[in-house]
């Protein structure tokens, strides 16, 4: 069996760019992905960046795919990785198609959506917001003609517009009813606060307006004046003072039962209403998909700004486990351009270790690291505020871990 210099799990923007950077330095690289197409979550993305400029994820994915193949990278889709094991040469990865051997392993598994359980959420026709995005933009199938979105955040607002482009009538974006588990998503005041903190460069009017608000008023004040019937964006009402209490239907969704709520999430009596819909999307936000990193023995830290538990890593994408690297949303939820830039850093770092030319590569790697910071500064879509600061803390933590680890990083079994 072939021993790869670098095996990458995940053919999203991070994995593909890492493959390209490493292959350009002469490494033998393989990329594995369980989805049917190359590109990861890029494939669903479609944002208008300026008047006549769209971020078309499918085009970007095709470009990266071609580039990687041209450089001799082997890419396999439809293959799932379910276990990892350290070996004397590096790593073994167990997949649905057998075992792979590699010197270095890069986990670029991306992010996953956080579920929001609401009564009725298992009825056919209820799906995550990302599911609808992929149906419409990737498979070119409308999940229905009319829709209600539960969960008001950057991603759900962006995808609402994408569904509209697919010909879906998005009736409203509302919030889930507050309960102990999801108090932030279900409290108008908290939703407002998150809009306001996020938005200095957000590409939408609502968010920009909210961003301006933020400099001189408190979210609790802003939410008081937020109209009950919502503010329209792309002609879709965003109602952060309307909460879903139940999704209705038997073998297929028929609609959503809603109530009006006070800024703190308290239900206002006698305001129950039913909005009919063919399908319902739940938008609970994104979290790093890091199960494989957990299997590999990485040290983790919970960082709210990064979306959840992330493996401790350096700015050069090393983890505290030998020969194991991470890049992209597994290190924190951000947009695809940042994931791409991180991928390049990982690819170069790994190449410098394999080729034993760290000194010669130093300036290239430094440039790549600077490019990540630049993308972050210029990001049009931010999923959480204060990401840069949170990341610096992780890098410091890595240095500390590293210093504590005079022993070999992890014993080989």
């Amino acid at each position, binding site marked *: 069996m072939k021993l790869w210099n670098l095996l990458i799990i995940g053919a999203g923007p991070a994995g593909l760019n890492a493959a390209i950077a490493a292959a350009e330095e002469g490494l033998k690289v393989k990329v594995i992905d*369980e989805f049917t197409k190359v590109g990861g979550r890029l494939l669903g993305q479609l944002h208008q960046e300026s008047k006549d400029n769209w971020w078309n994820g499918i085009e970007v994915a095709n470009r990266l795919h071609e580039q990687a193949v041209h450089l001799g990278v082997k890419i396999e889709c439809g293959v799932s990785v379910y276990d990892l094991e350290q070996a004397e040469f590096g790593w073994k990865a167990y997949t649905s198609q057998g075992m792979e051997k590699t010197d270095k392993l890069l986990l670029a598994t991306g992010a996953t959506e956080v579920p929001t359980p609401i009564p009725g959420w298992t009825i056919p026709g209820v799906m995550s917001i990302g599911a609808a995005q992929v149906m419409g933009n990737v498979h070119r199938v409308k999940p229905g003609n009319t829709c209600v979105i539960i969960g008001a955040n950057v991603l759900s607002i962006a995808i609402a517009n994408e569904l509209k482009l697919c010909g879906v009538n998005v009736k409203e974006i509302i919030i889930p009813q507050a309960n102990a588990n999801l108090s932030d998503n279900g409290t108008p005041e908290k939703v407002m606060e998150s809009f306001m903190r996020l938005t200095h460069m957000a590409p939408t009017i609502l968010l920009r307006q909210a961003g301006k608000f933020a400099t001189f008023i408190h979210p609790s004040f802003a939410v008081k004046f937020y109209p009950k019937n919502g503010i329209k964006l792309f002609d879709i009402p965003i109602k952060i003072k309307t909460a879903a209490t139940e999704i209705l239907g038997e073998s297929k969704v028929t609609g959503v039962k809603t109530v009006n709520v006070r800024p703190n999430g308290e239900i206002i009596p006698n305001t129950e209403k039913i909005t009919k819909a063919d399908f319902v999307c739940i938008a609970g936000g994104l979290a790093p998909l890091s199960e494989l990193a957990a299997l590999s023995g990485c040290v983790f830290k919970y960082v709210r700004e990064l979306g959840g538990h992330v493996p401790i890593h350096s700015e050069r994408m090393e983890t505290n486990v030998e020969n194991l690297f991470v890049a992209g949303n597994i290190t924190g939820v951000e947009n695809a351009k940042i994931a791409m830039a991180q991928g390049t850093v990982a690819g170069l770092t790994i190449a410098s270790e394999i080729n034993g030319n760290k000194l010669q590569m130093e300036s290239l790697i430094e440039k790549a690291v600077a490019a990540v910071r630049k993308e972050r500064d210029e990001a049009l879509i931010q999923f959480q505020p204060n990401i840069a600061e949170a990341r610096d803390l992780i890098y410091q933590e890595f240095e500390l871990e590293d210093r504590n680890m005079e022993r070999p990083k992890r014993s080989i079994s």
Partner: protein
Amino acid sequence: MTMRVDNHPVLGKQTDRKQVTIYFNGKPYEAYEGDTVASAMLAQGIYALRQHEVSGKERGIYCNIGHCYECRVKLEKRKVVRACITPIYNGMEIGSLTGFDERGE
């Protein structure tokens, strides 16, 4: 097939997709090459892919990208696969997993 987005204002037209036939619970359905089991069924207005083992209630896709395992279906009577990441092919036979009651377990 009204649920297909063949004309998209930004992504453009989708033409010349090769049509194939797949079988879901024994019934034939048209699909396009490049579809997943999940997208082919949804394009036909089929939302329920299986029944919950215990409650017998119907279930469909949730995440559509392989993370949640809600979309499990039987493939060629032998394998259980995730409908959302399984590509279709001509003559493919897919079946719903049913509640324990119906299986007589």
